[in-house]
Structure formats: structure tokens, C-alpha cells
């Protein structure tokens, strides 16, 4: 297998999935009609409801859904089962589930006066569905905050060339916000100044490595005489100098690890509490250019590598490692675990829930829902595919460095020197995770205030809700087991996807339409995800909780595993409650005549 074949397969899947399946559903089942009024045209107000060109909306929607999820998921799945199962799930998932989830959420909102999915859930299923939705969102955000926070802290602590670029990104983000909103500088000159300086600082990263390693980390670690603050056993990491398949290492939490963790959390704190124009938005914007340049160059390199650099175009990673990727007593059966490990590149509940809040209120014509919602999902699939290719051409190494080496090799194909290309790829990975993480806490703060604000008014204070969110995530970063954190995050995400498809199914039933295109993926994702959460809970019990419980000095993994098992069970119980309510609601719709029969003709 080489990269060109994979790129061609990806493009063919996108083309045929879109033209032969998605377009037919749009025409025959949904019957999108350009002559019907959309909320954007009916309620135009220049703020929320604004008729917008579908090309503009396509770019906006794609940027709103594409980030670190498809990249990290593909990297992790390829390491567990090999590149072939990951490729198959990405392709099949996006063709039959992913686009359907994103597109149908948008079109359902368009047909319901632009209401968000939570409002529609309240009406179609039951009032308590909205409360449960908050539960999903909160745990989803907590898990992703813990997982991404852990990745970032590991990288900043262990890869000393990385911090300079991150500091540059933050400073340039602040400068961009000031230039745009206070000094009234045009977007193009402000972008040129800030993005070029950020690129320069990223490429200077290796030169600053000595300072961060020998001065910053060393002086922080000297506070404890270079002794770890805590040592605990992590049973999911391969044991060094041991036979293959042997797992378990004594993880040492050094003061420098905590220092960088607190730096990340401070960054996220400002992203959460400051006005959005002052911090979060400009940092995301500058970060977007870093990742966009790396991804576009990487995709071009992946397609051209067969011709220009055939030696790097061949896959080095094993195609198929086996049906069960688990070692050391852990279960990682391909079903259901693959389907939650790769979430966003194949199907994502987050897209449906939040992509459907603003986009449907800006669609000028209902016929634009497919190119915007479905098209953006097929493009996200290509992003996941690029991440899979990047890790597949590099045979060894851990997740993030392996991805950076692979993407760096692709970028080098188009003429960028390899060292700079790898630095750029590594920075792109860090930036894409970092900008997501700061926004996670911003949204978590809002969710917490809405969820608990009425019963506990203190949570309405943005500082209190932010600090509580950060403290919970820090707890997971220090005690959680990364792979299980990621799979639980995938479980929460995919349960939201099945909930979104469930809503669409009920809506289609209530309007007398054929609901199979949403109903079958919904049942598959619902059953798969509940099973995956149970497997993760078992893994935590068998490989983390049981071997460590009662042993002195190993309290941290025991507490972390216990907490994560509780989260897994809460998610499953919440899903079962929603499933029961939906079953009752579907009987209600079946027993009464269709309120709004589908129009005749295409």
C-alpha cells in the first residue's frame, strides 16, 4: 500500500458517497426544496438569522467541525489495530453514518424554525432529555479536557522545542485581537504580521530547546532535589526493556510536569473568562493558519510522494494487528472499541449538536444543507485520512511524535527542508490540540452555569465555574489513564451522535418519511457505544483498579480509575433513559396520523 492509493480511495469514497447516496437521500427522502422558506430568510435579523452564500457557510462549517478529534483518533486506532481497520471504518463511517448525522441535524433544525437540537429534543422526546443532554456535554468536555490537557502537558514537559512556538502563538493572538478590535488594522495586514511572526517562533523552537530544558525544567525540578512529586503505576504503557506485549511502568510526576500542566490551565483560564475577542477568538484564528498550512502541504505531499519521493510513500505500519488490540489483560476488541476510538473522522455527535446551532439559521436555501453539512463531513474524513497516512508511513515511535514525523515527511515532499517540516508538523499538532482545549473550558463553564446555576448560584460566577472545571480536568490529567480517557471521550461523543440520529429518526417518523437512513446508523451507534463504555469500565477495573487497590503509593490510579468507571456507567444509564423515552415517543408518533405528511413528488 502506498499513500497515493490511499488518497485516491479517500477521494473516491467522498465522491461516490456524496453523489450516489447522500444526494439521493436529500432528493428522495428529505425532498429539499429551494423554493421553501428557510429560517434565515423568514426571520432575517442581521445577527443570528442571516441568509449566507453556501460557499461561505461551507468554509465556516468545515472550520467549525474540523480539529484534533479526527487526528488523534486515527493515530490511536492505527496503533491498536493497524491501519487497515482504521481506513475501513473511516470510509464506511463517513459514507453511511457521518454525513447523515451532520446533514440531517441541520435539515431538521431548518424545518423546525432554526431551533437547536436540545430544543427539538425537549419537544419530540421529553423535557428531561435536555437535562440528560447537559450531562453528556459536561462529561464529554471533562473527558476531552483531561485527555487533551494530558497530551499537551506531556509534550511541553518532554519536548523542549515546543514551548517557544506556543508562547508565540499566545502573544500573537493577543496582538491580533488588539490590532483588529482596538487599533482597527485591516484583517489582511494583521494576519500577515501575526502569522509570520508565529511561524518564525515555531521554526526557532529547536534553538530554544536548551533554555526550556536546562533552565526552566531543571530549576523547577531542583525544588524537590530532582525527586518526583508522586510516583504511580500506569498499566497501559509498554514496559521498557521487556518482552513485547509487557505493559506497565512506574510513572513519575516531576515538578516540571505539574508546572507545565498549570501553565496550560492558566492559558485555558484566560481563554475561558476573558471576552472572546480578547483571547480565545484571535488565538484560534492564528492557530488556524498554522494548522491549515501544515495540513494543505501535507495532503499535497501525500498525493505527490509516490512520484517525487517513493521511498517515503510506502506504509511501514502493520495493516492488521488482530481482532483484539488489547494486551496485558485489557480487552480491545475491534467491535465495539474501534468505533469509539475513531470518532470525529467517521461520525461525531459534537458536529450534529453544535454545528446545527448556527449553520441552519444562515442557510439561504434548504438545498444548501447537503453541500454544507454533508460536504464538510466528507472533508473532515479526508483530514482523518491524512492523519492515518502520516502515522502509517512511520513504523515506530509514540503517537504525537510519530504523526509529526509522518506529516513532516509529507511536507518535505513539496520542498520544505525536513527539519523545518517536522517542526511545523509538530507545532500544528500542538496548536490544534491547544486551541481546542482552551475553548473546552469556556464551553464547560457555560454548561456548568446552565446546569447547576439555578440550584447553586455560585456556579453562575464565571471564575468559580471555570476554576471548578479546571480543577476537575487537572485531577483527571494527574490520575486518569490516557487511552481509557480517550475511549470514554469517544463513547460520550458517539452517544451524542446516536442521540442526534435518534431525534432525526423520530422527526422523520413524525412527518411520515422513511427513517431508515438515520434509524439504522442510530441503532448501530447506540448499541456499539453502550457496549464500548462497558468494555472501558471493565478494562479500568481489571487493569488499573484491581492490581493497584490496597497497595501503598498507588492511590492516584485507583482514584482515577474509580472515577472513570463511574463516568462510564453514568453515560450508559443516561443513554438507556433517553432510549426508553424515545421508545415511548416513537409509539406516540406511530399511533397518531402523521401531522405533516411528506409532499408528493421530488
Amino acid at each position, binding site marked *: 500500500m502506498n499513500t497515493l492509493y490511499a488518497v485516491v480511495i479517500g477521494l473516491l469514497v467522498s465522491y461516490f458517497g456524496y453523489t450516489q447516496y447522500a444526494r439521493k437521500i436529500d432528493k428522495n427522502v428529505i425532498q429539499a426544496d429551494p423554493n421553501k422558506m428557510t429560517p434565515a430568510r423568514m426571520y432575517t435579523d442581521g445577527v443570528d438569522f442571516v441568509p449566507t452564500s453556501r*460557499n*461561505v457557510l461551507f468554509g465556516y462549517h468545515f472550520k467549525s467541525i474540523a*480539529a484534533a478529534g479526527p487526528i488523534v483518533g486515527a493515530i490511536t486506532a492505527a496503533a491498536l489495530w493497524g491501519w487497515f481497520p482504521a481506513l475501513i471504518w473511516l470510509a464506511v463511517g463517513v459514507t453511511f453514518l457521518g454525513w447523515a448525522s451532520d446533514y440531517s441535524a441541520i435539515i431538521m433544525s431548518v424545518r423546525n424554525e432554526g431551533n437547536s*437540537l436540545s430544543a427539538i429534543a425537549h419537544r419530540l422526546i421529553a423535557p428531561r432529555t435536555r437535562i440528560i443532554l447537559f450531562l453528556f456535554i459536561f462529561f464529554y468536555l471533562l473527558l*476531552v479536557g483531561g485527555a487533551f490537557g494530558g497530551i499537551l502537558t506531556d509534550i511541553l514537559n518532554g519536548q523542549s522545542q515546543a514551548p517557544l512556538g506556543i508562547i508565540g502563538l499566545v502573544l500573537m493572538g493577543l496582538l491580533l485581537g488588539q490590532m483588529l478590535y482596538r487599533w482597527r488594522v485591516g484583517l489582511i495586514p494583521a494576519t500577515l504580521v501575526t502569522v509570520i511572526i508565529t511561524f518564525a517562533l515555531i521554526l526557532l523552537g529547536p534553538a530554544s530547546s536548551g533554555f526550556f530544558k536546562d533552565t526552566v525544567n531543571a530549576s523547577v525540578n531542583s525544588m524537590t532535589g530532582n525527586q518526583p512529586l508522586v510516583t504511580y503505576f500506569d498499566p497501559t504503557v509498554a514496559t521498557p526493556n521487556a518482552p513485547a506485549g509487557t505493559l506497565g511502568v512506574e510513572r513519575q510526576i516531576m515538578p516540571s510536569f505539574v508546572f507545565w500542566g498549570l501553565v496550560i490551565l492558566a492559558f485555558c483560564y484566560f481563554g475561558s473568562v476573558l471576552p472572546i475577542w480578547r483571547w480565545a477568538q484571535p488565538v484560534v484564528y492564528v492557530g488556524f493558519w498554522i494548522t*491549515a498550512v501544515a495540513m494543505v502541504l501535507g495532503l499535497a505531499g501525500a498525493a505527490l510522494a509516490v512520484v517525487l519521493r517513493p521511498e517515503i510513500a510506502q506504509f511501514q505500519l502493520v495493516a492488521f494487528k488482530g481482532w483484539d488490540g488489547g494486551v496485558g489483560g485489557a480487552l480491545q476488541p475491534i467491535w465495539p472499541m474501534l468505533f469509539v476510538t475513531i470518532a470525529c473522522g467517521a461520525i461525531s455527535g459534537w458536529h450534529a449538536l*453544535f454545528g446545527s446551532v448556527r449553520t441552519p439559521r444562515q442557510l439561504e436555501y434548504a438545498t444548501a444543507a447537503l453541500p454544507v453539512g454533508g460536504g464538510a463531513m466528507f472533508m473532515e474524513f479526508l483530514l482523518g485520512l491524512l492523519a492515518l497516512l502520516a502515522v502509517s508511513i512511520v513504523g515506530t515511535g509514540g503517537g504525537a511524535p510519530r504523526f509529526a514525523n509522518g506529516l513532516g515527511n509529507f511536507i518535505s515532499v513539496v520542498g520544505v527542508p525536513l527539519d523545518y517540516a517536522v517542526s511545523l508538523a509538530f507545532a500544528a499538532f500542538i496548536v490544534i490540540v491547544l486551541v*481546542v482545549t482552551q*475553548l473546552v473550558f469556556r464551553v464547560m463553564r457555560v454548561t456548568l452555569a446552565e446546569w447547576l446555576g439555578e440550584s447553586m448560584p455560585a456556579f453562575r460566577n464565571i471564575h468559580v465555574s471555570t476554576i471548578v472545571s479546571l480543577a476537575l480536568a487537572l485531577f483527571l490529567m494527574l490520575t486518569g489513564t490516557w487511552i481509557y480517557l480517550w475511549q470514554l471521550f469517544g463513547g460520550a461523543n458517539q452517544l451524542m451522535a446516536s442521540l442526534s440520529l435518534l431525534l432525526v429518526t423520530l422527526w422523520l417518523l413524525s412527518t411520515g418519511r422513511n427513517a431508515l437512513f438515520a434509524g439504522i446508523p442510530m441503532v448501530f451507534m447506540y448499541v456499539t457505544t453502550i457496549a464500548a463504555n462497558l468494555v472501558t469500565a471493565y478494562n479500568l477495573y481489571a487493569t488499573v483498579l484491581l492490581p493497584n487497590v490496597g497497595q501503598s503509593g498507588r492511590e492516584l490510579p485507583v482514584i482515577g480509575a474509580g472515577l472513570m468507571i463511574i463516568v462510564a456507567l453514568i453515560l450508559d444509564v443516561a443513554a438507556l433513559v433517553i432510549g426508553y423515552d424515545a421508545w415511548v415517543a416513537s409509539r406516540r408518533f406511530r399511533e397518531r396520523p402523521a401531522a405533516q405528511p411528506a409532499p408528493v413528488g421530488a
Partner: protein
Amino acid sequence: MSLAERIRALRRSAGQFLFGMTAYEFVQHANHMRHEQNVLLMVLTFGDMIGVPIMPPYYGLRLLPFVVPELETWKRQVLRERYALDKEEFDLIEI
């Protein structure tokens, strides 16, 4: 459609796509900031129309002819039921 026209249309579409990915969120945010100022002014002068008690509407009456075209949209906007997920920040998060 001739080849030149097709190329022009393609370039226009690509430009709009790039605009959507980059500058559009700033445009939206600027619209929101302007809207917040407008809502404040409207509530201070015409708040009684949506049940907010205000001072005797002398200035409201002076301004009324200028805001008549926007009144219905404004009332619909501020009285629309909002859910937590409608918050502006949510669309920025990209996972």
C-alpha cells in the same frame, strides 16, 4: 457556460470558502457587538414594548419614526427563547 466563466465561478467559490474559514467569524462577532449596543439603546427607549418599565417615553417618541422598520425584528430577536446551546461561543469549538 464557457471555460473562462467556469474558472471565474470556481475562483469566486474558492474565495468565498476561504472567507468562510477565516474572516467570517470576525464579521459575525462584529455584528453581535453592534447588535448588543442596539439592543441596549432599544431597551432604554422602547423597553415598555416588551414589558420593561422605563421612564416616560419622550425620547422614545422622538426616535420612533427612525426605528419603526426594525421594531418587529427587534422584538422577535430579544423575546426568542434561548437555550444554553445557542450561546455564541459554542460554534468556535472545534473537536
